[in-house]
């Protein structure tokens, strides 16, 4: 296997007696899509917060391209090529879709301590932003205030913003959260297009999407990874079936 781009080693996080991440280790190779699944409350989002730098880890290491980034603040991790999306849509509602993305491009092209020239007229930033919007299929909504976009479009905008930071690795926290059937298809299609271009850590509840997209799947239960493998292996793993898929299966029957 290729050298890992993102490697997580013995990551822990506890709130008092409650252990939320329990010695989590996994690796993501360049271009690999690694899905993290697990029942509600398994600590998936906490883990993404730790990887992205929003939450401090108690112990363990996160490495990106061999560099230890465990203690770096979030903004520094982004500059090194680790971008994330949020489970609960996090955009600038008063800005146009284009400006939402252009700001991400601005963050990595030159100083932002410029006080006089109009930023909205910087063609270079706008062109980069437009390209990201095109990748997710939102080019037609560029001038729309982000706050009035439909929910599915906001999910796509989240992706476009992450892409505009020129990442090496993407942490995607439930990109399909709250989307309807049609919306979920367009987001899934976009994800398929991103696959292979970036190392991706994907958290998702939509099993259909996970098994269709993932190269490897890790199953998180009570903060612990209980299994890692190809979608096929995970589907047939008895421990996983018991801990997770079984519940879902019963729920589906009920």
């Amino acid at each position: 296997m290729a050298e890992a781009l993102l490697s997580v080693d013995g990551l822990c996080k506890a709130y008092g007696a409650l252990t939320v991440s329990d010695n989590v280790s996994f690796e993501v190779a360049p271009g690999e899509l690694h899905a993290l699944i697990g029942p509600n409350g398994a600590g998936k989002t906490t883990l993404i917060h730790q990887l992205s730098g929003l939450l401090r880890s108690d112990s363990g290491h996160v490495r990106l391209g061999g560099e230890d980034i465990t203690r770096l603040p979030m903004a520094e991790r982004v500059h090194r090529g680790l971008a994330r999306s949020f489970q609960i849509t996090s955009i600038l509602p008063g800005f146009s879709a284009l400006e939402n993305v252009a700001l991400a491009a601005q963050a990595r092209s030159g100083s932002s301590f410029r006080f006089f020239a109009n930023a909205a007229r910087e063609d270079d930033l706008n062109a980069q932003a437009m390209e990201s919007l095109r990748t997710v299929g939102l080019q037609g909504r560029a001038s729309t205030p982000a706050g009035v976009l439909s929910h599915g479009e906001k999910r796509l905008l989240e992706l476009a913003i992450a892409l505009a930071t020129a990442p090496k690795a993407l942490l995607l926290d439930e990109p399909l959260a709250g989307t309807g059937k049609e919306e979920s298809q367009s987001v899934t299609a976009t994800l398929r297009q991103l696959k292979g271009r970036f190392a991706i850590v994907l958290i998702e509840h939509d099993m259909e999407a996970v098994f269709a997209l993932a190269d490897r799947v890790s199953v998180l239960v009570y903060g612990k990874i209980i299994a890692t493998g190809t979608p096929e292996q995970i589907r047939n793993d008895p421990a996983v079936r018991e801990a997770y898929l079984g519940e879902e299966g019963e729920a589906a029957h009920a």
Partner: protein
Amino acid sequence: MSAAGTDIAVTAKARQAVGGRERAIIATFVLLALAPIAAQAGPQGYIIDLITRMMIFAIAALSLDLILGYGAMVSFGHAAFIGLGAYAVGILASHGVTDFVVQLAAALAAAAVFAFVTGALSLRTKGVYFIMITLAFSQMLFFFGVSLSAYGGDDGLSLPERSRLFGLPLFSSDKGLFYATLACLIGCYLLCRAIVASRFGRVLRGARENPVRMTAIGFSPYRFQLVAYVISGMMAALAGALLANQTGFVSPAYMSWQRSGELLAMTIFGGVGTLVGPIIGAMAFLALEEWLAGLTEHWKMIFGPLLVCVVLFARGGIMGLAARIGGKRDG
């Protein structure tokens, strides 16, 4: 379809509001420039003096809007910067340094240092804590002024003469000070407008809407907020330097928390986050105060409830009200 419809409506409305603001500010500046000529018909000295004062507070309110309206930093200690500017002029003048360039340089440097140090600490807090800590810092400066017995202490000190510009007594006539103040106001407005639209301003506005998102694309909002706080403080110090010249007097009262509260009221009264609003708000605030004070000595009984009504019923202040009336007329 319907989404696209709202979309066009929203952008059109926003554009209309901006267009309206442009017209309002150009009209304001033109009226101000003509005011001394019109004032010849009445008590000229009084009117010029009053309008100069209005413009000085417009600069201060404008500077507050830069951090309040675009950075969501509610500073309850902005009068401290006015005081710093005024004292820089007063203290230097009492030592015979009357050149405005030197005085202003001292005022801006003092404000920049004070803003940097207090801002660096204040900006580590959020919300109510930020309000309280900025208030605390300005109160510290207020009591420092009170204890400055060499410069009049509680009583303040009178300026021996107004500032000179390159040796010329440009400010000695009321009209000279009037036009100098107007030039400063226009300059500050244009500067703020450029800053708000710049790369820097865009990061500041982004951090106002969603600081976590800004961090997640690689910005540290803190640094941008601190720089904005310093710029704003320096601009308020310019207002203070002009105020010292206008009144010919400097006292700790310029830094009182009531003064900081008035600045907030002016900004909110005019319309936060519009730049134009606080300019008009400050002038309307002082004009109203002057007019009501002429009617009755209990004018605060009318003034207070009036401000409450504006905040309650005219969201977005004067600019918000104007936009709604304009919207109804055009729609």
